[in-house]
């Protein structure tokens, strides 16, 4: 029997397992009642667990138990919870920041139409930028610069 064919039955068992476990209890009770020496019947709880193991949902029960246990502990010890949450938050923030930076600066291309054509731009960026700046060369730019200088000297002399 393929594992695939078992899955529908496995899911069916999971959906009905409260009822099926009850039925198994009843079944074992009637088995025990029929025995000449009922005390020889093993532990019903252990048997039920072993039978439930067959259906492969024990991990789900264990997970639920662990989650409940964890939640109870977190509620009980608030300071620990706070410390754990803070440590997690800091850790997440640090890694996210580091990744964002590396991603933007190293991994991704420049946000331009054809970034490969800009490859020679970077080493002499300052020189190119200053020579290409229109405020230094154009007449209006020069005037604006002079005005702002005047404003700057006036306001600084006023403040002294």
């Amino acid at each position: 029997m393929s594992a695939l064919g078992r899955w529908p039955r496995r899911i069916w068992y999971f959906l009905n397992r409260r009822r099926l476990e009850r039925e198994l209890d009843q079944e074992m009770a009637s088995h025990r009642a029929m025995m000449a020496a009922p005390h020889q019947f093993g532990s019903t709880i252990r048997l039920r667990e072993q039978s439930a193991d067959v259906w492969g949902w024990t991990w789900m029960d264990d997970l639920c138990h662990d989650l409940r246990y964890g939640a109870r502990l977190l509620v009980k010890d608030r300071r620990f919870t706070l410390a754990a949450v803070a440590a997690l938050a800091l850790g997440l923030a640090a890694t996210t920041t580091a990744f964002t930076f590396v991603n933007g600066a190293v991994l991704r291309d420049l946000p331009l139409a054809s970034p490969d054509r800009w490859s020679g731009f970077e080493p002499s960026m300052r020189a190119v930028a200053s020579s290409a700046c229109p405020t230094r060369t154009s007449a209006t730019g020069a005037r604006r610069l002079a005005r702002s200088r005047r404003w700057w000297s006036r306001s600084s002399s006023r403040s002294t």
Partner: protein
Amino acid sequence: MPREAGLPPGTLTVLILRLLDAQPLHGYAIAQRIHLLSHEELSVEEGSLYPALQKLLLNGWVKAIWTTSESGREVREYRLTPGGRKQLEAALAEYRRTSQAIDLVLDNA
């Protein structure tokens, strides 16, 4: 001395399937019949029987139905499904082949 440890792995499944091929039975009756038919040489503990039955249910080889026994007790009876019958045939063929091979070695060594 009744024993169960002597059963090779997987044998219990074949025994149960073979019993259910003859007639539908409940858990206690399966254990009883294995005990009687083996001249009290084999005894199946509940600890092996119920997990084995669950495995048969999981594989779709048997179906469990609640009925009333002759003694008027509510019992859960197991019946072989067509898939179970096919599995029984395959398992029996496999068992006979292996057992013959073992016999050949034991007899001719």
